[in-house]
């Protein structure tokens, strides 16, 4: 990961970063810290707050999280890179995750992925569409196997998506 990642506003991430943990967020974090005997335990929740507010986990954001939790930036980066749900770069407005693990795969999930790549004009997995609206990725088991194919669009889970329903689903996203 480059330390010179470019933030969505086009400025250098280091310079563009305004602190996340101020005001209500700081209060929220402080309340959270009362739930655990260590500050480190609030790391995943703090990273979630960062991503909710900024859309991704930037190097500068990681530095801030490290600072408020008294951890080193390298440690925070090590943890962030272990988990798949933290975005290490900005993603499209609609982040589409299609489950293609075996139970969904046998129900045709790969065709659903291809339909999304076509309809969103992303073309390729992990690539954000030219208009910045979509990023499509394959995801490992969403835990909704009885509702194949489950698709997450940002925080919303859509059950039973089929090749035929993708066009309407994409058209319904602004």
């Amino acid at each position, binding site marked *: 990961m480059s330390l010179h990642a470019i933030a969505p506003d086009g400025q250098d991430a280091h310079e563009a970063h305004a602190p996340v943990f101020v005001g209500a967020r700081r209060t929220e974090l402080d309340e959270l810290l009362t739930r655990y005997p260590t500050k480190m335990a609030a790391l995943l929740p703090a990273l*979630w707050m960062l991503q909710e507010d900024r859309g991704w986990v930037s190097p500068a954001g990681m530095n801030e999280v490290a600072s408020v939790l008294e*951890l080193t930036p390298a440690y925070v980066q090590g943890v962030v890179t272990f988990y798949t749900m933290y975005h290490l770069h900005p993603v499209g407005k609609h982040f589409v995750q299609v489950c293609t693990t075996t139970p969904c795969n046998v129900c045709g999930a790969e065709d659903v992925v291809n339909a999304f790549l076509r309809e969103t004009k992303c073309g390729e997995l992990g690539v954000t569409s030219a208009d910045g609206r979509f990023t499509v990725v394959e995801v490992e088991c969403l835990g909704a196997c009885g509702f194949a194919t489950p698709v997450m669009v940002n925080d919303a889970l859509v059950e039973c998506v089929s090749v035929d329903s993708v066009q309407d689903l994409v058209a319904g996203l602004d």
Partner: protein
Amino acid sequence: MGYPHLSHGRETPVISKYFGDAEARTLAGWQARGGYEVLRQALATDPVDVQNVVKDSGLRGRGGAGFPTGVKWSFMKPDGKTHYLCINADESEPGTFKDREIMRWTPHQLVEGAAVAAHAIYAETAYIYIRGEYTEPIARVREAVREAYAAGILGANAMGSGKRVDVHVHKGAGAYICGEETALMNSLEGRRGNPRIKPPFPAVAGLFAQPTTINNVETVCAAIHVLRNGADWYKSLSSPSNPKSTGTKLFSVCGNVARPGNYEVGMGFSMKEFLWDVCGGPPPGRSFKAIIPGGSSVPILTPEECEGAVMDYEGIQAAGSLLGSGGVICFDDTQDMVRQIARLARFYAHESCAQCTQCREGTAWTTKILERIRDGQGTMKDLDTLLEIADNMTGKTICVLSDSCATPVVSGLKKFRHEFEAKIPKNRSSVMVPSFTTAAA
């Protein structure tokens, strides 16, 4: 019940009784259905007595390992140390989606179960670790926790008992391995989700190095019903022929099947009746080719092996597989088993935490070899190599993710070897040499 389908007459809905009933989601609705009475009584009962009822019931862990719950609780002694309860709601075993429905429909059932279990192990704090992708379950459980605090059910003086019970929801961030109990604890502590070497076992030094119990969502929910109705009632729900597997079990059914969904049946239920009647059998015009009965990490069964099996810990083992988490994955006769086993291996390769060599290398090479066989580039020797790698991946690592990858490969090769062989070009004895290196000759 068989949500999203109507409940089947042969089900025994205990934990799933209120699936689909939106009123049961609220505190008022849960209390109107008898909710939190078990907690009230438990808080007034000595933890050892709570443990004993659960021990007598024969309830075993529903996360996959099947360890007796009451025995696990009894490892926690009143030693003056801070104890923790972790509820494993990281449900991520492919094919399993039962805890999701428990949390979506009856979040208070989980909160009550967690509070009861915390009391039973002398803990004041329970963390419910829910996988990050479960956005709706997280919201439902958080709301239930908020309601429970507001009503004084949780907090410094839980239900007026004078005892402190705190329940916190902790959101995961995308890692299958965090469903492994020691990885879950590391993740909760704000670390990478690498499993820990045991010993020390969690009951000795677990979360934050304190004595800890980790229970599955379904387990603590079942415990409420055991405590409400008694151990004998719980045992009466399952087949009397096997006293080792008691009560009911939620099975998640998915893949190529007429009615996918969650079904709760008594332990010892006939697998034939379950698959062909309760779940409606294969999709119209097709037949089953293979069934994975307990989540993707257990051996693959043929339909013939399923026909005579009964659905409990011992019954599925006798049929050659494991009950596991109760995630039943169905494959019909149109499926290419090589392709699907390769896809399973890819899952494990993606999810390996990579700290053990056998797993990191084994899952990656297993996937590479399976995918080249899938693509018609394999050799007969590859089949032996797969088994050799699988042998090296079994029983040699810190956790069982490595074993879990090897299991479907070994059982798949044993039962569907003809499909693998059919993909290997005849007389191919070594890996194909790319054409450009031979063009000059």
